[in-house]
């Protein structure tokens, strides 16, 4: 029994230390943001890595999520004879919720892991220490550009996801289930309010900050061995996903 309590205490201590370390690291990155923005070429390269290279998987996922929405949405709505609402239902679901969340989950798996393992390997091969020795702050040169790249990419990717998703829902609804195209689009236009879009935007920005910061931090703090890097990569996916879902709930509750 006392063993369990001791273990719990150790876990709690570990968690506290890690949270504190994350907060300090996050602050250190924020301080370095202006200097990094002054030299945008590094950030642009990372927007390419995090954003452009994630495009295919995001578009593919968006298309299929949209198509599933079209099928399920049609199936339910037609029971109430209101299948023309398909456009508005799927668009609101995508823009407010599915777009930001699914994009963030995919982003953690695709771009987040890439960032963690890259920084972890740089650490394991002494590249971060070499930067330190050249009087170059690795946080500024390595971490912040990757963080900003993720923060900028995430809302853009979520936007693309939602658009392709709506296209997918329309594909199924209009061409397969024969919902009237005019009704589909006019319902969508009538129901879509600016606040849905801003809600989705706020969410994906928050997810971008959380996922990128977690990925960079895990890489920067990993044990500099092959096993350490692989564990850090796994933690990136798990922690990012949990963070995204919790933040999603909190933001939804606040913005209801």
């Amino acid at each position: 029994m006392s063993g369990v309590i001791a273990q719990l205490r150790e876990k709690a201590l570990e968690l506290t230390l890690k949270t504190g370390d994350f907060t300090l690291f996050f602050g250190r990155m924020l301080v370095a943001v202006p200097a990094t923005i002054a030299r945008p070429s590094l950030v642009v390269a990372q927007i390419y890595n995090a954003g452009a290279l994630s495009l295919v998987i995001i578009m593919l996922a968006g298309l299929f999520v949209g198509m599933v929405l079209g099928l399920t949405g049609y199936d339910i709505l037609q029971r109430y004879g209101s299948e023309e609402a398909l456009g508005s239902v799927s668009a609101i679901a995508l823009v407010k919720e599915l777009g930001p969340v699914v994009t963030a989950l995919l982003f953690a798996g695709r771009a987040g892991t890439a960032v963690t393992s890259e920084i972890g390997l740089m650490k394991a091969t002494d590249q971060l220490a070499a930067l330190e020795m050249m009087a170059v702050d690795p946080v500024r040169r390595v971490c912040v550009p990757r963080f900003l790249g993720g923060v900028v990419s995430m809302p853009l990717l979520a936007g693309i996801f939602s658009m392709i998703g709506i296209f997918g829902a329309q594909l199924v609804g209009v061409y397969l289930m024969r919902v009237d195209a005019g009704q589909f689009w006019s319902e969508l236009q009538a129901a879509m309010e600016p606040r849905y879009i801003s809600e989705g935007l706020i969410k994906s920005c928050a997810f971008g900050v959380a996922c990128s910061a977690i990925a960079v931090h895990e890489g920067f703090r990993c044990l500099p061995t092959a096993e350490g890097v692989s564990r850090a990569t796994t933690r990136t996916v798990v922690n990012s996903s949990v963070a995204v879902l919790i933040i999603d709930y909190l933001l939804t509750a606040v913005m209801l």
Partner: protein
Amino acid sequence: MDNAINTSLRNLATARSPADLVMRLEDVSYSVGNRAILKGLSLSIPRGSVTGVMGPSGTGKTTLLRLMTGQINADSGRVIVAGEDLGLLSRSQLYTLRKRMGMLFQNGALLTDLSVYENVAYPLREHTDLPEALIARVVLTKLQAVGLRGAADLMPSELSGGMARRVALARAIVMDPEFLIYDEPFAGLDPIAMGMVMRLIRRLNDTLGLTSIIVSHDVAEMALLADYAYVLNAGAIAAQGTPVELAGDPTPAVRQFMAGLEEGPVAFHYPAPDYAQQLLGLVR
């Protein structure tokens, strides 16, 4: 080269006043978890000398270099470099000091996303506003010095281990530092490259007035190169002196190391149960 060594030796004899000691460790201890790696180490390094740090694998030589450059902080004791106590410096003060240091890492540590040329140019681009033509000139001179001017356009992944280390050496000297710290500069070099690197280290030291610190377990090379050497064993200094003095050191541990004997107080084997018993499955 003998001449050069003799001059430096003479310099050394007169260089014991505190102002000439550019690096000083006072009773430094460092441990990871509850395992002590360095135990109460004191040493001093005079300006313009080539100092060797030797010792068996895993005794804390790399750890010592990381302490000297402020990459890690001592648990107790002081590390003083160019009059500054590293433990008391802020990050930006430490970076200012590091612009005067060059370090060659054990495995090169080149930035893998940049070409050889860009790796060597990197410190210049970060810290100076030199025009491109001048950067090219400096970079090519340094690459020529390590014999790799022709490899300027290769990526680090296309280099062999020895080549990578020579590029890293070019990068370490590109800012013309005052201190040069080498971690195992000879490991994995062929005899030709080894001779070249040794001459380069000596030449840099004597012509530019550098202070060099070399970590290595190559006793023969160190005997030729170092003005003064420390032998580290189990996280403490086992012996110190000129290479000649060390070669005649009577302490068994030092004799064993300098002569490369298996039998002696320095265990070649990590602590383990009895060999025969373990093979027979009597102990695990």
